[in-house]
């Protein structure tokens, strides 16, 4: 836990266990009640009376304090109160909990909120017990269209519900293939471009260099790295309250069988990368690791984690399945919300636009891969010139637009389901391929108690 939080500080993009058990049966009640005293404004949602001078309250996690500071420096005329909270990380779900309490109280909402999770638009876009949705619609004129269009393709998908955009993405967390170039060269291996090659390499490593690993399955985001990237239909969110779950397809089975083989031969251990156990056993022995963009800062280039020396870490494109186009998964990436209850929408909009697009923050300060494409380009150049990486970072850029769209952002957490049903079973020696039906049932159950219609 402690490791986890600390790592989160380094590579802050831990959305982690997206709202462990986040759920919303109550949301089914939405639509029954009427709105508050607000009138429908020009931005496509009910807004309260505006006051351009009103100070705005901004909730950030400790890593995003830098964003607020950069904004203050550039916009001294806008009054903001910065409140630090946990960013809803590590499954605390505090963003939602607090907003629900403000909804009950009928006041107290912050104007801008940063969340480390991807699940928030799913509830923040919905009426709850007759209360207006918390999130302001951003593509109804509040944020300029040109700005929205410049975000990396698909990056606003977790923010979009029924065509309306409810948040701006801070950073992307696309999965890529991280590898230790020095080790690969030393062993005489090539970087795999397909999952079949990846598995074959894993089997070779087990025989020729036992003790070295090519991945892990111990973290709750395992399904997002391997199953999302294999087009497995575990999380087919098709509407605000509908989901399609079918985990017994070829796409799911191929990923499961591959992992079973690699778990059995010891090259993908069932150990979380954020445990002392992992560091003890595998420091210097990570040959490859499919994982999100933030792994670079959180585990590889982190003195408290694997601490891979300068000039060794390479990044490869996400592998494809033979005969299929290459797609990839996504593990988190922060989001910025504007409150629909804000008295100063103008200032709130100015703030979220600044922190997601301005070079002052996204290029110069932010540790993660910016979701805003023009900033991402500059950020990559800056990273490449640092000399830390053994390869260029173009694979990372490309992967940003390769995220498979068949995996949605529902209100419940896929990570929590995996952690609860699969991780202990794998520890007990069961095969993932055999566990697929059980996993499917667990997802369906969780979706249903959250008010989803499951297909």
């Amino acid at each position, binding site marked *: 836990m402690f490791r986890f939080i600390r790592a989160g500080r380094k590579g802050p993009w831990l959305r982690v*266990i997206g709202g462990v058990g986040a759920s*919303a049966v109550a949301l089914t009640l939405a639509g029954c*009640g009427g709105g508050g005293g607000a009138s429908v404004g020009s931005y496509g949602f009910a807004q309260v009376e505006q006051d351009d001078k009103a100070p705005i309250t901004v909730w950030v996690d400790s890593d995003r304090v830098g964003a607020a500071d950069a904004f203050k420096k550039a916009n001294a005329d806008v009054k903001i109160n910065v409140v630090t909270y946990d960013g809803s990380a590590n499954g605390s779900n505090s963003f939602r*909990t607090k907003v629900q309490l403000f909804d009950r109280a009928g006041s107290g909402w912050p104007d801008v909120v940063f969340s480390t999770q991807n699940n928030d638009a799913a509830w923040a876009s919905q009426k709850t017990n007759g209360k207006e949705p918390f999130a302001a619609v951003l593509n109804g004129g509040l944020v300029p269209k040109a700005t929205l269009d410049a975000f990396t393709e698909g990056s606003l998908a977790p923010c979009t519900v029924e065509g309306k955009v409810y948040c701006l993405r801070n950073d992307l967390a696309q999965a890529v293939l991280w590898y230790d170039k020095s080790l690969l060269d030393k062993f005489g291996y090539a970087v795999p471009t397909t999952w079949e090659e990846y598995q074959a390499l894993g089997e070779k490593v087990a025989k020729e260099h036992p003790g070295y690993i090519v991945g892990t399955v111990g973290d709750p985001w395992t399904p997002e790295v391997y199953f999302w990237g294999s087009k497995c239909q575990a999380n087919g969110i098709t509407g605000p309250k509908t989901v399609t779950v079918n985990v017994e397809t070829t796409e799911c089975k191929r990923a499961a069988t591959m992992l079973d083989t690699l778990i059995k031969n010891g090259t993908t251990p069932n150990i979380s990368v954020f445990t002392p156990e992992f560091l003890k056993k595998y420091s210097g022995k990570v040959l490859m690791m499919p994982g999100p963009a933030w792994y670079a800062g959180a585990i590889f280039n982190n003195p408290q984690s694997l601490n891979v020396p300068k000039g060794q870490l390479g990044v490869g494109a996400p592998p494809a399945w033979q005969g299929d186009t290459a797609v990839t998964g996504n593990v988190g990436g922060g989001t910025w919300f504007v409150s629909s209850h804000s008295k100063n929408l103008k200032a709130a909009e100015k703030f979220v636009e600044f922190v997601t697009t301005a070079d002052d923050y996204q290029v110069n300060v932010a540790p993660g891969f910016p979701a805003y494409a023009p900033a991402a380009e500059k950020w990559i150049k800056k990273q490449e010139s640092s000399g830390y990486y053994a390869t260029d970072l173009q694979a990372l850029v490309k992967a940003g637009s390769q995220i498979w769209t068949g995996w949605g952002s529902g209100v419940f*957490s896929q*990570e*929590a389901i995996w*952690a609860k049903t699969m*991780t202990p079973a794998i520890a007990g020696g069961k095969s993932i391929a055999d566990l697929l039906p059980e996993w499917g049932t667990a997802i369906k159950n969780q979706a249903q*108690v959250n008010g989803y219609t499951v297909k």
Partner: protein
Amino acid sequence: MTLTDKAARAAVTSHGRPSGGRSGDDKSAMSYGFVALYTVLVVAFGVLPALYAVYLAFTDGDGGFAGITNFTKVMSDFRFLPAVAHVALYLVIWLVALVVLVAFLAIVVHAVRVRWLSKTLRLVFYLPGALAGASSVLLWLFVLDPTASPVSGLLHLFGFTSFVQVIVPANLPPIFAIIAFWTGAGGWIVIMYGALNNISADVIEAARIDGATTVQIAWRVQLPLLRKWISYMGIMSLAAGTQLFVEPQLLSQASNAVVPNDYSLNQLAYQYAFQQNDFNGAAAISLLLLVIALALSAVFVTRGGLFERG
């Protein structure tokens, strides 16, 4: 736990204390004063919230009467029955261990004639309980991780090499029982010790003159006289045990949800209230818990003779 400990300690110390020199009227005025304070607090933080929960449990999100739909909803939740089973298994392990071991250890400590040893033992037993609940659970996060644990040898002996292997679902009830025993039993041992002190020395002496051994005295004299205290401990611990929350909640966060966040009934209620925004469902679960705890307490009260005089 801390609250019940304090209450129990107060009960022990007040038991059989000689009355002071004040007149009866003074005393009763004083006692009304004390009771009034307590009553205000219990109404504000006990009775009113309970009534609010009853109100919530029978209404829906908009405040309309809902009948028993909240109850049927939570009971048909796929997480409900597993949570009941988890708590029940935990309670059985924990309560049996608590009653047997606390009574045994208290009698052993009481029988120790060496003053410093007896004192040290009481302190050692009590110390873990002096740690605040959550922080003592945090300590266990390290104890249970084979790579960080001070007793890693023991964990390896059981065949555990990783944290996840230790916390597989089958191991959880005994783990929570051990944690709860470790944090809570010390206070009860001290209370039982106090209760043993209250047994008249004449009784013990008479038994000894009649030729009873230490074991016989413990079994035939001390234990029967401790019956009320044991049943009191049973009720208090039952109430705390059915509300199992801190241990699984912290382990859940620390294990990145490998220990589910809906393991116990109280956690499920928490999920309903703060993750699903369904305070009504949460209230329904808490009412069910209340009913179960009351029913089980009734067993302890009647079997333990808690309210019998003399």
